[in-house]
């Protein structure tokens, strides 16, 4: 299959990219790694009039220490995220989840920012940014806007970015001492999208759960935070039984899709089982 024709711009700086995007108008698309966009264009499910290719915008790549957070450039590839020492040290949940995205060749091209802006509720990274309370940084001719993860994912394949806004990167707060993390991905084959995923970070203190952050992949048209479970485990024991009991609330507030790989009911069931497992692994429960 072959994409339809489009105009092509290849800016070399963020300023140039923002200007190009504004000029190109609503029917333009930003091309990051292209691993979601190009297949959609080949199937002619997407017909952008123009592509703004960010490949040459070097300042959008890389991870830097930003005090109490990491700043991850939008064009940092999954491959680079997985191997980045800062990510390993301060956001291991992100490294873990990114390592499960697609396959090695796709991770070489696909980018952190690209997959977040794509806002696919079955994607693994949106839930991770939600669990970590990440902040999205966007640029437009109107300036810089910061968008909390909780507001960034609006709906199926829809982010909060305005048509003229470019995601430049994401600020991911560092997890301090005592945190354990796990991304529990449930899928039918290694390559398949998550039927359900659970991004989980737990801080232990004196043998109890001091704090937990849990977000779910593919349980609604956008990633969902499992607040009820977070509250239920906080202050409680680090035990599988306690986690199982708390995870009974994992499907609250979700609106899971029904598709080839699972009904909504099955997804709710999985969310409960997998949330307990993710908590147990993250917390190192016996």
């Amino acid at each position, binding site marked *: *299959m*072959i*994409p*339809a*024709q*489009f*105009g*092509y711009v*290849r800016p070399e700086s963020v300023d140039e990219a923002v200007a190009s995007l504004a000029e190109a108008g609503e029917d333009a698309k930003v*091309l990051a790694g*292209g*691993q979601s966009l*190009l*297949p959609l*264009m*080949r*199937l002619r499910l997407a017909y952008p009039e123009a*592509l703004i*290719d960010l*490949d040459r915008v070097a300042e959008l790549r890389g991870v830097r220490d930003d005090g109490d957070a990491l700043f991850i450039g939008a064009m940092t590839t999954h*491959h680079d995220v997985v191997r980045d020492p800062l990510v390993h040290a301060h956001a291991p949940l992100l490294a873990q989840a990114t390592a499960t995205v*697609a*396959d*090695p*060749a*796709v991770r*070489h*091209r696909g980018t952190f920012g690209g997959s977040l802006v794509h806002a696919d509720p079955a994607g693994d990274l949106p839930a991770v940014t939600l669990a970590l309370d990440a902040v999205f940084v966007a640029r437009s001719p109107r300036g810089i806007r910061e968008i909390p993860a909780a507001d960034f994912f609006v709906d199926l394949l829809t982010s909060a970015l305005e048509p003229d806004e470019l995601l430049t990167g994401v600020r991911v707060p560092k997890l301090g001492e005592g945190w354990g993390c796990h991304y529990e991905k449930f899928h039918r084959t*290694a*390559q398949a999208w998550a039927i359900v995923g659970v991004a989980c970070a737990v801080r232990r203190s004196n043998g109890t759960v001091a704090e937990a952050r849990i977000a779910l992949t593919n349980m609604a048209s956008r990633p969902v935070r499992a607040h009820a479970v977070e509250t239920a485990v906080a202050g409680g024991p680090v035990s599988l039984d306690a986690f199982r009991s708390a995870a009974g609330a994992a499907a609250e507030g979700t609106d899971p899709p029904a598709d080839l790989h699972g009904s909504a009911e099955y997804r709710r069931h999985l969310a409960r089982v997998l949330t307990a497992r993710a908590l147990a692994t993250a917390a190192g429960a016996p």
Partner: protein
Amino acid sequence: MPRVKVEVDGVTYEDDVEPRLLLIHYLRDRLGKVGTPIGCDTTNCGACTVLLDGMSVKSCSVLAVQADGHQVVTVEGLGIGGELHPMQRAFHQEHALQCGFCTPGMIMASIDLLRDNADPTDEEVREGLEGNLCRCTGYQNIVRAVRAAAEEMRQAPEREAAS
């Protein structure tokens, strides 16, 4: 039309291309590099895997313009002076191919895998090749071949050092 300059298997080409031209079609239809085939539309099968600046990519999901200024190695560019690459040799020795359609991509993905991990376990090979589908072999001999090639490639530098 944008102009691209791409090194493919050691030869530099300059061409005007439509922005939408996929790298795989540039290789096959413009350069006659038909050793790399196309198996799907959605990056799932991996038959079109090539190395772009040394890293595996699926050339059906890269635009030719994105390869501008970069280096591409296809299965046709492997081996030096008529010698097969150890991975090609291992695929032959271990009967890791039948119809051979996935083989170019599988070999390139396997080379990339060893670049990352010179001594993978069976499980690591299987996971590392999750993006390359084969319908003939059941993968068992592919896993065997990748490990055999890894063994040979780990020993080769020592042998050179010893000689």
